[in-house]
């Protein structure tokens, strides 16, 4: 089983932590969101051999998150994905699709404050279009 290492950090520390991983030669693994109340919790994972560490931080609606894709190019996929599913805004993504990466029929379906997502959860007709 993988080690379960979670570091709770503030958003302002994010970039310096990521730079640290980059300098120590760690590999970018994952970036994803999940909802905590009205906020989105970002989880960013890095690995080196059998070590695996996860950074987690809370992002409020409308808050800008610095993009890590200038450091880890493959992160552009995940930044665009998180933007489309959670509505988290990233600043400086290298290939920015500006919210058109996953053209979902419901805008930001996983955002905790999304009206459509709430309707979907209750089993009501999802307002489309």
């Amino acid at each position: 089983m993988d080690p379960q290492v979670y570091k709770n950090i503030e958003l302002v520390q994010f970039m310096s932590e990521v730079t640290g991983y980059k300098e120590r030669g760690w590999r970018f693994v994952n970036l994803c969101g999940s909802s905590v109340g009205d906020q989105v919790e970002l989880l960013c994972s890095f690995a080196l051999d059998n070590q695996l560490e996860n950074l987690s931080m809370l992002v409020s609606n409308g808050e800008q998150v610095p993009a890590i894709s200038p450091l880890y190019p493959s992160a552009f996929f995940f930044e665009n994905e998180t933007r489309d599913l959670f509505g988290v805004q990233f600043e400086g993504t290298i290939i920015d699709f500006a919210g058109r990466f996953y053209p979902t029929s419901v805008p930001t379906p996983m955002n905790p404050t999304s009206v459509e997502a709430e309707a979907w959860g209750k089993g009501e007709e999802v307002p489309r279009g």
Partner: protein
Amino acid sequence: MADRTVIPFGPQHPVLPEPVHLDLVIEDEKVIEAIPQVGFIHRGLEKLVEKRDYKSFVYITERICGICAFGHSLGYSETIEALMAVEVPPRALFLRVIWHELSRIHSHLLWMGCLADGFGYENLFMQCWRLRERVLDIFERTTGGRVIFSAVNVGGVNHDISNEDLRGIVTILEDMKDEYQVLLKTFLLDKSVLSRLKGVGVLTKEKAVEYGVVGPFVRASGIPDDIRNFGYGGYGYLEDFEPVVSDDCDGHARCMVRAREVLQSIDIIKEMVSKIPDGEIMTKVKGSPADGSKAVSRLEQPRGESFYYAKGNGTKFLERFRIRTPTSINIPGMVFALQGCDLADVPLNILTIDPCISCTER
């Protein structure tokens, strides 16, 4: 400067079994930029955790992708076991490894066939798929399904395989091995295969590290990255594990790595069958994941490392389940590897990373 043209590639394209769209910005015959457009298969499965309890969601995870079906249900189960601290009986761990390695054989043979089809070697395609049917027969006999088998659940496995059947599997694989050697020889030595794949889609070691690619893609660039190496789950019982690596960094190297992994998987299955203990196959799991509990786990799938993350909220429905599939991290690598290649090599470049789009988009 030559004129720039944009060539749309996909979503429907003869070499693509699945829809993905690429805008290829080309100058003369050289690709200078490839921009992916995904979302054609996005269904929103991760959000279904809110509607299915954690035990029945395992059947949804299998339907994330029909090729990696077993791997995803295994990865999900391992994550929930980590979340709830469930101890899995050893026999179940062994059976999981056996099925997982069989899936790897079937997935690699499928890919080798698709690759052969991609460069127009129809005969080789048919031979690979003919051989693959033997593995599917094993699946059908042991689980009842050909591609989606509902064999794993949280706490263990749903079906047992009798020791007699296990020995039968080894006999079938031994038979297969002889026929497979002929295919292997073609893939490794045939002139037409070599001339089509050698030097195509080079991704150097440094670039592979920079883009963080995984699976056979990175192993073909000389980096021995393989989650099986860490001995998680049933892989801890293996005597010795050595990842298959190639230093050539091109399309042929990726083909070679996968071709050799088939033989390696056969050896792993043989070793597991010779060591498998008797006993229970399922631990009863009671209760729900605690509020705020988190778990991550990684698994080496046929296409590379996949990453799972689950978060509980005290009910039997998970708060969040996330899958980072191997293709989603390989696509950025592929996009960068496509820069500077010939237009005619684009389909092969895409095929050699073995993209699995429905995994990626869920």
